[in-house]
């Protein structure tokens, strides 16, 4: 029989991933590896602190872990000096939209020629599931035990805001809540690197990623939560594609 699907062994080496069961980060890593192995050059990755940093050892390319929230500017500094390389920042929602929001925003303003993959799991996961900018209204976290309430504000539509900036050449939101969703993650990441290779500006892929552990659900419920709740607040799709205008 013909082999039709197989994960990249080097991504899984040496003992597989260290994420919780059902964590979407594994899917993102596999998607990223799949995309990169078809590319002529390996990108260099700047990985943020968070559960996301468990990706470090599995990345399909050179990696620098950076201080929490600021990997977008770190990546920009690198890219400014190495315009010939593909540079990719991988960040959690807490880092990208919270702690590092100023740096993320101005990376978009400047239209840095990099790719950012944002993992939106609705919590600060690595520290134990605290409120993040992306937590849905009403959702309980360890710092909002009664649920996200009005005084915490509603979830932040950061990608929608950034998409209004002309420095953002491409912005797409995808979701890990079905097989199709996972395929779209691959497609979106591939597209983002194409945009970068074309020098069109900043490309951002936001992935709605299940965190069964801190959502206090099983993996299947977590997928359903994305489909039924998260995606109504954070709709998936291409938010902006300025490469079309360019052509």
């Amino acid at each position, binding site marked *: 029989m013909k082999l039709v699907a197989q994960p990249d062994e080097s991504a899984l080496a040496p003992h597989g991933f260290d994420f919780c069961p059902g964590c979407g980060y594994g899917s993102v890593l596999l998607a990223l590896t799949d995309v990169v192995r078809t590319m002529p050059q390996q990108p260099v990755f700047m990985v943020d602190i968070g*559960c996301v940093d468990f990706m470090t050892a599995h990345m399909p390319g050179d990696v620098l872990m950076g201080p929490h929230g600021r990997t977008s500017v770190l990546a920009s500094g690198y890219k400014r000096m190495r315009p010939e390389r593909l540079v990719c920042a991988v960040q959690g929602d807490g880092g990208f939209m919270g702690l590092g929001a100023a740096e993320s925003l101005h990376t978009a303003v400047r239209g840095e020629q990099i790719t950012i993959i944002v993992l939106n799991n609705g919590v600060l996961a690595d520290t134990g599931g605290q409120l993040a900018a992306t937590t849905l209204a009403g959702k309980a976290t360890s710092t909002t035990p009664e649920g996200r309430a009005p005084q915490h504000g509603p979830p932040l539509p950061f990608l929608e805001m950034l998409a209004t900036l002309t420095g953002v050449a491409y912005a797409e939101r995808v979701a890990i809540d079905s097989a199709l969703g996972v395929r779209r993650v691959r497609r979106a990441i591939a597209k983002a690197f194409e945009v970068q290779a074309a020098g069109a500006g900043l490309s951002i892929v936001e992935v709605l990623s299940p965190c069964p552990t801190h959502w206090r659900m099983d993996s299947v419920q977590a997928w359903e939560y994305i489909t039924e709740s998260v995606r109504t607040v954070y709709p998936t799709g291409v938010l902006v594609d300025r490469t079309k205008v360019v052509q």
Partner: protein
Amino acid sequence: MSEVLSIVLTGRGGQGVKLSSELLAWSASADGYNPIQYSVYGALIRGGEIACSLAASREDPGVPLRSDYALMCAMHNDWFDRYYPLLVPGGLLAYDVANITPSSLTRSDIEHVAIPVAEMAIGAGDPRAGNMVVAGVVANVTGLASRDALEKGMTEVVPAHRADRISRNLAAVETGYTWAERELRDSFAAWRLQ
């Protein structure tokens, strides 16, 4: 017999080792002991290695980091090697029979007892409550906590959003407690807290 009883539970985070240890500490406190409890994690790993140190005494239990364990409860091969040597001579290793490689049990200066954790957990109605079985075993064998204290402790350590688990957990604790009463009556007698 030392005035301070010092025990360690090792395993993987996903097994709920920390909750067992916290339960034991809270319950011991409720029973009038002065416990100190401290967990060491393998860095950067979800569900990775964990070791929970628990010392208790009627008086000052001392420091959180120990190297003088009278009892080690091993639920997984991970970190077994790190803590097995820290058992004091004459101490007791109680281990999950399904998870510890028998060839690792090399010391002759201590006692070894196999716990049929999975079997008891399934018997108690919750295959994932092995950690609670273990807590019951330890509570009984050490004299750290009575059934009453364990019940009080349980309501303290289970987070509010998981309160529905309390009764299932208590059933598993009870299974371990009774098993130890029956099977381990004489093991560890020298160390038992009064």
